[in-house]
């Protein structure tokens, strides 16, 4: 997977993801990239996806709620980017029920609950969070299909 991952805000980039693919904080120079936005940065990420629909390959919204700007929200119907909304089951700030709002607003939105994670998903369940993000962005169209080998003793 050579496509870079843009993380917003850049400080939120986690080590486990950085170990697996190039992380970039400056999408302006990139032709194609995946986009991961934490919490309030979701608004900036969605504006970017609307501005450059062909450049954003897949979008992950982590512990984020839809923005308050209704004019912006109205434009989400235009989005064609495959999106994954990840919410922690113990998140008191952005509770899991927020997923329903993303599902209603975004045309191509998968919802995943990260069990036993609070608001800081990557800190609470680092491996589980990195795994689901990588699984999604590697092939968003095939996301629902288990592509791991389940053989115990080949």
């Amino acid at each position, binding site marked *: 997977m050579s496509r870079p991952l843009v993380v917003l805000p850049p400080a939120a980039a986690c080590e486990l993801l950085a170990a697996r693919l190039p992380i970039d904080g400056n999408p302006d120079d990139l032709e194609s990239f995946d986009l991961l936005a934490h919490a309030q940065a979701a608004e900036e990420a969605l504006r970017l996806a609307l501005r450059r629909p062909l450049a954003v390959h897949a979008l992950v919204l982590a512990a984020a709620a839809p923005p308050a700007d209704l004019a912006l929200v109205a434009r989400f119907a235009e989005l064609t980017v495959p999106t994954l909304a*990840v919410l922690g*089951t113990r998140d008191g700030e952005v509770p*899991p029920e927020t*997923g*329903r709002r993303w*599902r209603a607003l975004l045309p191509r939105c*998968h*919802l*995943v*609950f*990260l*069990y*036993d994670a609070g608001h800081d998903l990557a800190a609470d*369940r680092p491996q*589980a*969070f990195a*795994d*689901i993000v990588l699984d999604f962005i590697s092939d968003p169209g095939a*996301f*629902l*299909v*288990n592509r791991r080998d389940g053989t115990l003793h080949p």
Partner: protein
Amino acid sequence: MKAALFSPCTYAGPTAPSGWPTPVTVYSSDLSRQTFETAIEHSRLADQVGFDWITVAEHHFGPFCMTPNPMVLAGALTQVVKRAKIALLGADIPILNPVRVAEEFAMLDLLSGGRLVAGMLRGTPNEYITYNVNPRESRRRFEEALQLIRMAWTEPEPFGWQGRYWQYKTVSIWPRPIQQPHPPIYMSGSSPESGEFAAKNRIGLGFAVTTLALATKASSHYRSQAALVGWTPRPDDIIYRVPFHVAASDDQAMEDLAAAAAASSRSFSLALSQGAEAAIAEAGYYGRDDAQRGRVAAAFSGGIRGRIENAQLLLGAPQTVIGQIRRIHAEVGAGVLDLVPALGGDKAIASIEQFGTRILPAVRELGA
């Protein structure tokens, strides 16, 4: 006080002498059929004479309780039991597929017209051997499975689950339970950990294979933990399971029990080899008050009078049993008795009838 009947589908014939798992070298299909017919007949009768719940339970690989998937029997009971609730006590959720459990519970709630009681248990220690699950993971699996089942019942959008023990990419169960937001949930356990978890998650708690003293202590811990998070369990939130036998007089009841013990030396054992038992204890299965197990075992070896004294058996004429129930209610605060017939055959039938007609009306008002 409410009454549940638990007719545990114990195999009606002789078996090879063995601990668990029990070999099937001595086995009869006819006797197994009889076992199920009897359990269904007991359930029908209990429903007719006023029992509030009919209980089914999950156990594997042995003759003691031939309902490895209690959902199947519960499905049949929904069509026979017209009035009482159908209580699953329960599904051993740590060793199962929680999404499947959520689906089956939802079907049962629908088939019973909203009469499902959804008990979710950790199960007896041997069940971890059944499906090859590490008993060390028991509590954490239980907690995750419970949250996942609740989510599957209540979340209207398809969702994925990135758990510690289970992963699903998308879940959207059909049908949904009739009871909203979901059927009442119970767990079991006398350990401090179980009481704390039940209190924190606002779910009911059941006590089985215990003593009056231990259940009283565990119940008091559950209540105080519930108070810490701002709620008060109702009597209905506490279940106490106990074998029972009712006869015309106390002496008759005692004689019945002694005669049955003399006629049959069958004792179904869930005993594991010493090595396996040690490995399960070492895995922390029993929680931080591990010594409790020894106290329960000691109480069960105390003879019939000792078992009555410890509220491990309800035995006697109706008036005597009423007194025994009042004591359980006063000390444990239990509002649901889960009653297991101590004897089989006609004695079980008569006991169920006596309980429904002579005892239940007298204890109905306790805690109501």
